[in-house]
């Protein structure tokens, strides 16, 4: 039972990590709270669902979902955020909120208000050892997250573009004076972050076996709490915070059976941590 809850918690936490990482990377470079990121997550799920209906191959649909989300992310950065960067922080925040509201409505109008079932055949099979059991979709989530995180780590630490990205997160102006094309780095940043969110959307679509217009609204706010919990802009902190929130939710609801809204757990954890560490778990002043 305990192991089972642990596996559930880590699976949920991994999806949170995929969503929150994009958010924290965007914050790291542009210092904006990208609420519409959750809209990209839902968009990824819809594109994944649609292409799965069209093609019938899950892995290809996952890839198409990621690619579609990445394109959307870059477009948002180019046409909405870039012209607003010199303004007070509240302007891009409101743009992001407006965009998120519009995206949710667009999904409802285009694809209908009902949930769409996403029962893809993945071909991994369940795994069981005694009473411990991992479902096929859980294995899928863990596997995909692990691959993406490894890719991200390798990209950030082993390539020159990754180095430039980390430099930009520290000080974009100085980095640009070293001849780095900061605009391109920001685009790459949005590409990777949005692709991860798209992957998270497809994974949740398969895990819950449904895709629905407002699937982004809870992750939108929860991901922000996670990002703050991990220390805004801090990538390892974000992964850690995601897993902690995933586990805390599963344990508070599943094991302790406290009648408390699952979605408030992340915020309570965040407020508690901020009381003692105002810059998040791994954040620095």
């Amino acid at each position, binding site marked *: 039972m305990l192991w089972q809850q642990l596996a559930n918690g880590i699976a949920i936490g991994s999806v949170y990590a995929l969503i929150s990482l994009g958010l924290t990377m965007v*914050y790291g470079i542009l*210092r904006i*709270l990208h609420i519409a990121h959750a809209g990209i997550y839902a968009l990824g799920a819809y594109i994944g669902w649609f292409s799965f209906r069209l093609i019938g191959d899950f892995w290809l649909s996952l890839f198409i979902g990621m690619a579609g989300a990445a394109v959307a992310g870059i477009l948002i950065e180019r046409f*909405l955020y870039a*012209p*607003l960067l010199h*303004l007070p*922080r*509240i*302007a*891009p*925040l*409101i*743009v992001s*909120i*407006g*965009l*998120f*509201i*519009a*995206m*949710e*409505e*667009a999904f409802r*109008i285009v694809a209908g208000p009902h949930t769409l079932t996403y029962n893809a055949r993945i071909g991994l099979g369940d795994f069981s050892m005694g009473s411990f059991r991992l479902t096929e979709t859980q294995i899928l989530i863990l596997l995909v997250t692990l691959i993406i995180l490894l890719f991200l780590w390798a990209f950030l630490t082993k390539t020159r573009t990754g180095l430039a990205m980390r430099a930009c997160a520290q000080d974009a102006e100085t980095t640009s004076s070293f001849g780095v094309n900061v605009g391109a780095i920001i685009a790459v940043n949005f590409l990777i972050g949005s692709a991860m969110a798209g992957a998270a959307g497809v994974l949740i679509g398969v895990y819950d076996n449904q895709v629905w217009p407002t699937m982004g609204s809870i992750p939108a*706010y929860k991901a*922000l*709490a996670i*990002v*703050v919990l991990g220390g*805004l802009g801090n990538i390892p902190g974000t992964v850690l915070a995601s897993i902690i929130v995933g586990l805390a939710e599963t344990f508070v609801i599943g094991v302790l059976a406290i*009648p*408390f*809204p699952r*979605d*408030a757990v992340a*915020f*309570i954890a*965040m*407020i508690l941590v*901020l*009381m003692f560490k*105002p*810059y*998040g778990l791994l954040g620095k002043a």
Partner: protein
Amino acid sequence: MRRESQVVSGRTPNSFRLATYGSKMISGYLITILITVVIYCILAHSLNIITGHAGQISLGHAAFFGIGAYTSAMLYTEAGFPFWISVPLAAMVAGMVGALLGIPCLRVRDDFLAITTMGINFVIEAVFLYIPFFGGAMGIGGINLPNWLGREMTKPEYFLLILVVFVFLLLLDWKLGRSWVGLAWASIREDEQAAGTMGVDIVRFKVIAFILGSAIAGLAGGFYAHFLTFIMPQNFGFGQSIVILCMVVFGGIGTRWGPIVGAIILGILPEVSRPIMEYRTLVYGVLLLAMMRFQPGGLLGSESILTKGLRRYVLRPLSKKAS
């Protein structure tokens, strides 16, 4: 009082007949919209104190609105306090909670503050929803319009009452804007570090802004509860906070009239756009997005087309004429 007794005794004076005629002219539907819009004006105004004047982004303003509404509702239905006591108490409680939550909030950096206030909103909504004392998902019912002159207020009268309170709040805002407090807020908003160096007690003035903004939101909550006669946790969720924030930003953050214009436009918009019901929220989202993208200062911001136009075609010719 005397006129009231005349009505009861059956002789209907002309003025009273006129009043009833007038209240029929202003239909129930219209008066409902008017009251809602004034309540939104008060809310937008209160958030403008925190976000516009003192420059602290709050994404959880509906929490204080909710605290005010619940306090006044509980005091009215459980403790039997009349409206005239329960609503001021609601404002006080909301202000105190604002101070309590504001102090730890102000330890964190600006972006953290936005998300922390958002978190507070979720937690407060969860408290209302999950603690049976607050009526749970069913909410609290049986709250009535206030009594005066020995009878229950009519809706037009209630509207006038709220309007008078709102005008009073605007006067207060005008006074504060010209005082030391307003100056200190402006300095914090423009450059917090510089203000600190100059000897402005940053934390104190931020907390004052929080208390004042929260208290006024609580007052609006009390009015709202007595107007709706029935409140639910969902009325005070994060979505509501966003609506309030959008009104402030849409009209022009930090300006005196902007939030009011924003509250009126965005408050009436759902009613006007009934024919396009299906696309209403989409329009709302796109409108916000377009507004911020092309007029980031808001409708009445110093750089907006509207303000520039006013200055160019109305104010300048007028001043020329005067000289």
